[in-house]
């Protein structure tokens, strides 16, 4: 029982990341009709927003400590972050400690900016082009983005630890009489994902902007005829999708150390999630994200892998095949989207 609940929790966490990426991906599909292979790269860029902020906050001045030596036997240069110099070790240390959550504030404008730039500078020219061309150009962009990150940050994973206060484990089951130790940061991530997903949905549900975008998803030409500047709104939509993917990346850093190819690792999976959820369906993407996350968790249990060796490697694809063969347009897909 405890083990099962624990796996569900794990699945929800994995599912949160899938859902957030898939959400943006399906928004872009639905509104712009663009297959964005660079969406994984946006997730990666988000994570590197956190890395960059952490590095910026830890920028240090050097003082020479004659009592110690470095690896070459020279006097050791002791580094002290400027932040600690300015605010004192305690406040400064706390600021560095909270680098990841603080990155959210930085990442939102940066990611929206990147989204705008991508849409205006590149994607805009590909609305009328075949999907194959969109794939090629966004794939090229994804490679360029990750190579740029590799150039500056290297290929090795970089630790972005959570704040000390959010480190450690909380026992979720204590009030149920169960033993459910779970890392605090993972709970934070899950709650954060729920908030972001809720935010996106209410934004689309309750604002006029959202209404126009939803109408645009249903029928782009009609809305165009009404004289609404749908293109500009779509640009904003792209920025929003980029921000969602970026935020998913920022907060994911403490769970999996960011590296330059993490976007590619998630790209294929998030496409599967979107398609299983149903093309152009926002609730579908979220549902499929959580569903696949939980199934993946269960498939990783010893029981599953001893019964069916290798099931943990293929579960997501197996489920995708079964869903697509029984439900032609995924769980909640609309007819006619991306079927040509």
């Amino acid at each position, binding site marked *: 029982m405890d083990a099962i609940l624990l796996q569900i929790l794990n699945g929800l966490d994995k599912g949160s990341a899938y859902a957030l990426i898939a959400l943006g991906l399906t928004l872009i599909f639905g509104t712009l009709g663009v297959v964005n292979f660079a969406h994984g790269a946006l997730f990666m860029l988000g994570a590197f927003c956190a890395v960059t902020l952490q590095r910026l906050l830890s920028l240090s001045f050097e003082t020479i400590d004659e009592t110690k030596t470095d690896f070459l036997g020279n006097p050791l240069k002791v580094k002290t972050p400027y932040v600690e110099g300015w605010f004192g070790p305690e406040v400064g240390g706390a600021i560095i400690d909270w680098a990841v959550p603080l990155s959210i504030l930085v990442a939102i404008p940066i990611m929206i900016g990147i989204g705008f730039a991508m849409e205006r500078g590149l994607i805009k020219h590909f609305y009328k082009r075949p999907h194959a061309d969109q794939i090629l150009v966004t794939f090229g962009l994804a490679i360029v983005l990750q190579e740029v990150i590799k150039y500056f940050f290297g290929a090795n994973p970089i630790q972005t630890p959570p704040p000390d206060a959010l480190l450690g484990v909380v026992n979720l089951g204590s009030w149920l009489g169960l033993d459910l130790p779970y890392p605090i940061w993972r709970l934070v991530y899950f709650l954060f994902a729920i908030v972001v997903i809720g935010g996106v949905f209410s934004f689309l549900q309750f604002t006029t902007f959202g209404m126009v975008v939803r109408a645009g998803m249903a029928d782009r030409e009609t809305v165009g005829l009404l004289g609404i500047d749908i293109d500009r709104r779509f640009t904003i939509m792209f920025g929003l999708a980029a921000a969602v993917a970026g935020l998913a990346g920022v907060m994911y850093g403490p769970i999996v150390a960011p590296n330059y190819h993490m976007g590619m690792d998630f790209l294929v999976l998030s496409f599967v999630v979107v398609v299983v959820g149903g*093309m152009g369906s926002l609730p579908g993407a979220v549902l499929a994200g959580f569903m696949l996350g939980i199934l993946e968790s269960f498939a990783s249990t010893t029981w599953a892998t001893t019964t069916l060796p*290798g099931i943990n*490697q293929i579960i997501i694809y*197996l489920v*995708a095949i079964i869903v697509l063969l029984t439900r032609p347009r*995924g769980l909640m897909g609309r007819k006619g989207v*991306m079927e040509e």
Partner: protein
Amino acid sequence: MLGLNSKDTMLLIVVAFLALAAPFLLNPFPTNSSLAQFNAGYPDLMQRFAIFGIFAIGFNILFGLTGYLSFGHAAFLGVGSYAAVWMFKLLSYNVIPAIILAVIVAGLFSVLIGYVSLRRSGIYFSILTLAFAQMSFALAYSVLSNPKFNLTNGETGLQVYGDDPQILHREGLPDVPHLFGWAMRDNFLELEVAGWEFTFNNGYYLCAVILLVVFYLAIRLFRSPFGLMLRAVKSNQQRLNYTGLNPKPYTLAAFIISGMYAGLAGGLLAAMDPLAGAERMQWTASGEVVLMTILGGAGTLIGPVLGAGFIKYFENIFSKINDNVLHQWFAFLPDGMEDFMVFIVHPFVGKGWHLTLGILFMLVVTFLPGGLVEGGQRIARLFRRRGKKTDTPDPEHHPKETPHVAE
């Protein structure tokens, strides 16, 4: 000639010339010059050009003609390679049974995957093929290489060991893949002319001949009623249905044919180098052939071959340019300038070859929507226009250009 019209015959002759003269054409720079780095006329890379050309031609029969975008074609390549190496292990190093079995096994595998995947269209089809291929990859990498039932030899890759049966192996036959004693890795001729050198490799010429045969078959297919039906599938399935034609067997046949092309490519890869690794089936490998085809020009005959050559060239030539080489190139500049130039070029070569490739993808697809073939056409048009400036275009005899249709 050979049942082709004059334009296609010309195309085939041009391709045959390029393929057969490749050892000369790909080694344009004298061996000692600093540009020798850009020479591609060594056996391994030439083999890869031909093999991935075959792979891309086959992929294009499915994608270019019917518009069905398979994201799992590398699975057939991988299965072909495994089948071929198994033939080496069980029968002998003769490449003929290996290649034949590779094609057959890949064909059967594609019947299975195609039959299921083609029940859906559009992106749903793409994801189904992707899912099958990723499953194949994951299983080949781990479960299918467990000690009890080792079908793929996992990460290390399937290879021939001394204790394999090789029941048809005889004394005197080479201990490497061969065609009736004609070892694939040998060169039948090495030529040195002044500063140039040219290598004529057995394996490459086998690949080149097979490439020409399958290229010829592809031309025939493009010009056949069957090819026309495939293009009709892409253009308007509804009309096709109401014209009394069943799109299903047409697309399935195209899928199987392209799967067999992929199996052939996989078999040839193993024949050139008898080791089959699971990475061949990974989604990145499937993505690569998609990129080759689009980059070269989907739906054109020659485009996929060009795209394959383009990507393999970058992978093998640009990745080998290191700072030492850069310093040699820019040695003629004053010291400061030299370092500056190296600093500028450095991120784009060697370990940065992916970056250059990504940028080129973006440039080509943005400015040449029809791929490299369109680039070629534009250049050709430019020359033609220069040649006869007074020529007024005659709308009757110059029908509108039709991109994405066989050229």
